[in-house]
C-alpha cells in the first residue's frame, strides 16, 4: 500500500526552556545544562540547547482523546488496516542542528507506506511515518522515519 505523501499532520510548536528541562528529567539526563532556571537564562540572554531527541516531545499533536484510536495510540495510526493493536518498531533520525528554547518548530508528518508482513503470531502491518522538523527560519532541524507495527 503506498501513499501520496499528503501530510497526516502539520502544526507548529514553540519550544520553551521548561519543555527542555522536563524532557531531560523524563529521559533521566542529569546534565546541568538542561536544568538552568528561566531567570538565569534571561540574565545571559542565552537559549537553552535541547537533548538530541527532543523532537520527540513535539511529534504528537494536542488532539482531544476522542480523536485517537481505541487504544489511544498516536492518531496517525488511524489507518484502514485490519490490525487493532500497535507498537513502536523502529526509528531513524537525522539531526541537522540543535533545537533551542525559543525556537518555533514546524512539524510535518506523512505516511510513506504500509507494508504487509507475516509474523510469528499472524499478519502484521508495518506503517512507515516520516516527520520533518524545520525551525522559524525554514531550516531543517531533524527528520525521523518511524516504523510502527500494527497487528
Amino acid at each position, binding site marked *: 500500500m503506498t501513499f501520496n505523501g499528503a501530510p497526516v499532520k502539520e502544526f507548529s510548536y514553540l519550544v520553551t526552556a521548561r519543555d527542555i528541562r522536563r524532557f531531560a528529567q523524563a*529521559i533521566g539526563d542529569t546534565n546541568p545544562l538542561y536544568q538552568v532556571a528561566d531567570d538565569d537564562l534571561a540574565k545571559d540572554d542565552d537559549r537553552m540547547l535541547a537533548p538530541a531527541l527532543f523532537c520527540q516531545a513535539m511529534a504528537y499533536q494536542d488532539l482531544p482523546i476522542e480523536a485517537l484510536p481505541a487504544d489511544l495510540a498516536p492518531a496517525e495510526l488511524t489507518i484502514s488496516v485490519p490490525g487493532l493493536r500497535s507498537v513502536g518498531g523502529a526509528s531513524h533520525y537525522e539531526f541537522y542542528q540543535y533545537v533551542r528554547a525559543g525556537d518555533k518548530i514546524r512539524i510535518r508528518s506523512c505516511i510513506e507506506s504500509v507494508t504487509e508482513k507475516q509474523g510469528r503470531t499472524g499478519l502484521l502491518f508495518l506503517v512507515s511515518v516520516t516527520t520533518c522538523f524545520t525551525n522559524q527560519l525554514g531550516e531543517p532541524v531533524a527528520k525521523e522515519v518511524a516504523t510502527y507495527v500494527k497487528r
Partner: protein
Amino acid sequence: MLNDNPIPANTLANDMANDLRVGDPLPIFDFEVSAAQVFMYSAITWNRHQIHYNQAQARAEGHADIVVQRGLLGNLLVRYINSYFDNIYIETLAWKVVSSLTPGQVIQCTASVIDISGSGWQQALRLHLSLKHKERLICDASAAIRGRHRADVLVPYNWGSEGV
C-alpha cells in the same frame, strides 16, 4: 540509571583519533528504567497510548507489563553516547525494537566502532549499539557521530521580543 563505573569521557577530535580502532568495543553501561520515568516520558511527549501506563491493557495485548516506549529507548542510546564521548554531535541515530522492555528490568548497553573516517576536527565515527536485558536483545541500533563544531552551538537567529 547509569551504573557507577567511572568512565572517562573522550573528546572525539583529540583522544579518539589515537585511541579507537574499528572493531573496538566501548564500555558497558547498565540502565534501569522506572515506571515513573515511563510515565514522565509519556507525559512530556503527550503519548497517551495505553500500553505505556495501563497494565491490564498491556497484558491484554501480550506484554508482560507496561511497555517502555521506543522513543525512551532511543534516549538511553543518546545518554550512552554522550556519557562516553565529550563534545560530539550526533548526526544520525537509528534503532529497532526487537522485544518489549518493561520498567524495573536492568538493561545493558554495549557498543563498538564500525567505521572511522576523516581526521582531527573532521573525524567521524559510526557505532553499532545494542540494549539487552540478560541475554534478550531489546534494541539494535547504529549511530553516526562527529566532533562538535563551533557553528553547531551558535544561535541562528535572535528572536528577541518579536515572539512568534
